[in-house]
């Protein structure tokens, strides 16, 4: 999973919702911009944004995810269908979407995003589900690992014939799911004791603020989208 990395780049300093708005704008633009040059130009711009924002981990993540994708695109469209241009267009679009979201998710602290949603008076459940899920996922993954180790100690075989591996699914899955379900009531009680479900409006101690940089990035996002549209129809 992509994790937040502390920093002082542009994407770190802007309001979380501005960052996600910019990501949506760039992702839309790369499909609106006319092929073949448009998507390549938007990808190049997004790489520059990630470099300027000092997010090497987002760039690395994009390379890791994109390389096999580009390989298969060149195999199917370049070798089999003799249309490498289409491979470049699709690859640029997909790599742009991967990069821009990886950059935003790396830069935006999840807690700040939840605070931003709460400051906008979004229902508590939206922020809670988002933040609780981010906390639960690594814990359940660790638990899945612990269960697999425990079951292997008891003699479960996770390698070998396909039938044996299929048989191992249930002994690995059932304990994981049942342990997760047994937590539900405990969590519901914890939510109730914190006043969730009441009528009082929750407030945020340090709501994220939008400033001049947000206005500039907002103009940039709208500008890219409008520019791509006119480039296409022009």
């Amino acid at each position, binding site marked *: 999973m992509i994790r937040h990395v502390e920093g002082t780049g542009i994407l770190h300093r802007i309001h979380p919702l501005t960052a996600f708005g910019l990501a949506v704008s760039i992702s839309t633009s790369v499909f609106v911009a006319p092929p073949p040059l448009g998507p390549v130009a938007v990808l190049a711009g997004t790489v520059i944004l990630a470099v300027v924002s000092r997010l090497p981990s987002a760039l690395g993540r994009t390379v890791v995810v994109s390389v096999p994708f580009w390989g298969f695109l060149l195999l199917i469209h370049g070798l*089999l269908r003799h249309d490498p241009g289409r491979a470049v267009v*699709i690859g640029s679009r997909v790599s742009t979407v991967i990069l821009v979201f990886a950059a935003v998710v790396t830069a935006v602290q999840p807690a700040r995003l939840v605070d931003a949603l709460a400051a906008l008076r979004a229902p508590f459940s939206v922020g809670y589900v988002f933040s609780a899920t981010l906390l*639960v996922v690594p814990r*359940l*993954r660790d638990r899945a690992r612990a269960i697999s180790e425990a079951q292997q100690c008891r003699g479960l075989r996770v390698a070998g014939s396909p039938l044996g*591996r299929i048989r191992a699914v249930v002994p690995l*899955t059932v304990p994981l799911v049942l342990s997760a379900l047994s937590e539900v*009531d405990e969590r*519901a009680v914890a939510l109730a004791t914190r006043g969730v479900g009441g009528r009082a409006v929750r407030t945020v101690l340090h709501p994220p603020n939008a400033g001049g940089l947000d206005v500039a990035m907002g103009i940039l996002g709208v500008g890219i989208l409008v520019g791509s549209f006119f480039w296409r129809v022009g």
Partner: protein
Amino acid sequence: MTLRLLALVPLAVGINLAMGQIVSLLALPVYLDTVGTVLVAALAGPWAALATGLVSQLILGLFVNSVLLAFLLVQLLVAVYAGVMCCHFRVFRSAPRAGGSGLVLGILAASASWPISLLVFGGVTSPGVTLVTAVLGGLGLPLRWAVYVASLATDIVDKTATFLVVYAVLSALPGRLAGRFPAAARARGVAG
């Protein structure tokens, strides 16, 4: 949304994502990334399943691979189908019923996902499916059919396995735990 459902959804999303670890450990050609969604459909009905599917795909899309955001519609289809089948057809009454329902969902999911795979990604999705697509394309099958056949083969196996895993979980659910989720009894066909 009740507090119990609010507590259930993040855990179900966690199950969806943790299943990837089990599948990769066993090196099986399936994803099982909708087990949590189908389970919630059985335990709490279609609306909770929709919330689980939505959050699951958003988290996968944002924090794992944003390409997956394009398949949001497929997750929602799985949630609606599982919710309706659990509410009205008691699909988890027996293993063959569960497997059959999963097989039908596999056909529906493949039919919903192949246009996305073809138009947005040029037929390239996960490595296993794409390899099948490339082999079929190399054999002379038109790309759109190669993508559809590859998606169909994967989704039928994956969704059938998903429903059978959820059947196994519901069968193993202790009575006290099952009692907390009234919809579970209906999905298992043990109550009106």
